């Protein structure tokens, strides 16, 4: 203390004033910079959302939602249906696996287990891989090696790998937030581990898991790079009838474009700017709505824990 206060003692009053004045200057500059950055960020968000809405909404028309795609109407309806189907399939695959894996990590594995570390490391790796690399892998594995061709199933499985780490992590966090007293209480009543997991631990963790699942839906809906070379760019409606006759599995192996891919193709063809603008609005509203829903679910989790 003495050493640090010594120089101040030797300084003249004028020097101390000058120093504090420079500190005030520095503070003012820092404050300005911070506000500037915030204003800039806010301006970008407003510009982005505003531009998409203002240019897109006037271009929305019923033609764009016609059931069948034709060159004249450039309807996004088949793409919307495809997006829905791909989302459902990807979730059917990824949610049970992701939730199961998280249950293993949190409830079954011993702390410091080697396997747990490896699972965490690989999940982190998966979440860092860019979507184009998933697309390449999906193309090589599902399209070429398994011979599925451009198929909805190939795209959905590729996406399910992509969202797996997201679901794993959010479920893990949700399970960890369930107090240990719940587990102790359940075991104390003589309940088995499995029953404890399903009837005591999962219900309070549900909003957290749900919020992760909804975030994953948002990612799937906005995804394009991973789908172009796996699910392809087919613009027809899903159909159970192929040239070989009727098959329940036919749509799974059909080339399908999702809404995001549809928008990319509209843009790269360069002829359909108005339709692309309208598609951008639908895409933006969908994704933002889905993400808002996820935030809502997460808030519900926080509230539930407060009361519990």
């Amino acid at each position, binding site marked *: 203390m003495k050493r640090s206060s010594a120089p101040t003692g030797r300084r003249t009053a004028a020097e101390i004033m000058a120093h504090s004045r420079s500190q005030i200057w*520095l*503070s003012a500059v820092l404050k300005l910079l*911070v*506000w*500037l*950055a*915030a204003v800039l*960020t*806010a301006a*970008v*968000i407003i510009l*982005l959302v505003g*531009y998409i809405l203002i*240019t897109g909404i006037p271009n929305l028309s019923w033609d764009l939602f016609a059931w069948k795609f034709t060159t004249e109407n450039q309807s996004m309806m088949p793409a919307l249906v495809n997006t829905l189907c791909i989302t459902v399939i990807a979730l059917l695959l990824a949610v*049970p*696996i992701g*939730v*199961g*894996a998280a249950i293993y990590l949190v*409830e*079954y594995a011993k702390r410091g287990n080697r*396997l747990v570390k490896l*699972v965490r*490391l*690989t*999940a*982190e790796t998966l979440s*860092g*891989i*860019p979507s*184009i*690399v998933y697309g*390449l892998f999906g*193309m*090589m*594995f599902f399209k070429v*090696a398994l011979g599925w061709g451009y198929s909805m199933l190939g795209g959905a499985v590729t996406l399910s*790998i992509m969202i*797996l780490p997201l679901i*794993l992590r959010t479920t893990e966090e949700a399970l960890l937030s369930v107090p240990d007293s719940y587990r102790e209480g359940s075991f104390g009543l003589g309940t*088995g*581990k*499995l029953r404890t997991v399903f009837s005591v631990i999962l219900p309070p963790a549900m909003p957290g898991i749900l919020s992760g699942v909804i975030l994953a839906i*948002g990612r799937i809906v*906005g995804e*394009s*790079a991973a789908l*172009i*070379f796996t699910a392809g760019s087919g613009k027809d409606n899903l159909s159970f009838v192929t040239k070989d006759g009727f098959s329940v599995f036919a749509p799974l192996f059909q080339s399908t474009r999702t809404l*995001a891919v549809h*928008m*990319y193709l509209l*843009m790269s063809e360069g002829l359909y700017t108005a339709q692309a603008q309208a598609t*951008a609005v639908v*895409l*933006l509203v969908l*994704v*933002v709505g889905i*993400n808002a829903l996820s*935030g809502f679910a997460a808030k519900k989790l926080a509230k539930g824990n407060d009361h519990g």
Partner: protein
Amino acid sequence: MTKLKETVMHYVFLLAACVSIAAVVLICVYLLGNGIPTMFEIGLGNFFGKVWKPSQDLYGIFPFIIGSIYVTAGAMVVGVPVGILCAVFLACFCPHRLYRVLNPAVRLMAGVPSIVYGFFGLMVLVPVVQRLSGTSGKGLLTASLLLGIMILPTIIGTAEPALRAVPRSYYEGALALGATHERSVFSVVLPAAKSGVLSGVILGVGRAIGETMAVIMIAGNQTKMPGGLLDGLRTMTSNIVLEMGYSTGIHRQALIATGVVLFVFILLINTCFSLVKGREAK
């Protein structure tokens, strides 16, 4: 019966946990197994050379590697200062009522699909740069601006919680020593949150280098070596998407090998991220 069910389910959960390991192994095997032999087939000198002319069997991806690095660096120059300052604003300066609007807005930004960002870049940023510079408007500058915007939510989303996690006593201690609010935040709180902020930046690097659909729209995609700030360039990611559709044979293999080089970059970035996070945990 219950005992059996317990054991079976234990292994089912174990199996589920192993899926992510299997996925990483499978991805590595397929990418590396396809890409590395291709690199040798093309010849390393050719593959890492400067000329990409598939029609003449020249598959040099060096310009694209440099392109990816330039674009990522540009995005960092734009995004990192703004991102960190904005995170500081949200954590330490923001009035409560403004926070309730700004925070969801930043999270909204994170959810916007990259194709929509690309569209925005093409329709808004490209014409602006075009008018100001007199060039085509597509190139390094535009790509850096757009990617800088795209990594903002990544950086803010990681840095802000890190700043909030700094114990309040640090800040109060600095105030008590006579530092102003700004000085306390910048010379005490920010350094204390260093590793969290740094991991946000690394995540941003990963997002920028892996970005595909937005870059295609606005980078120009020329195959030559990247030149100045206004020149067009092509990244590894856009090279894959642009040519995969019509490529065959060795050309297609070369594109997959491009993906492998990208994958190696991503693994390096991931390793940096784990190192930083590991240090934070200690």
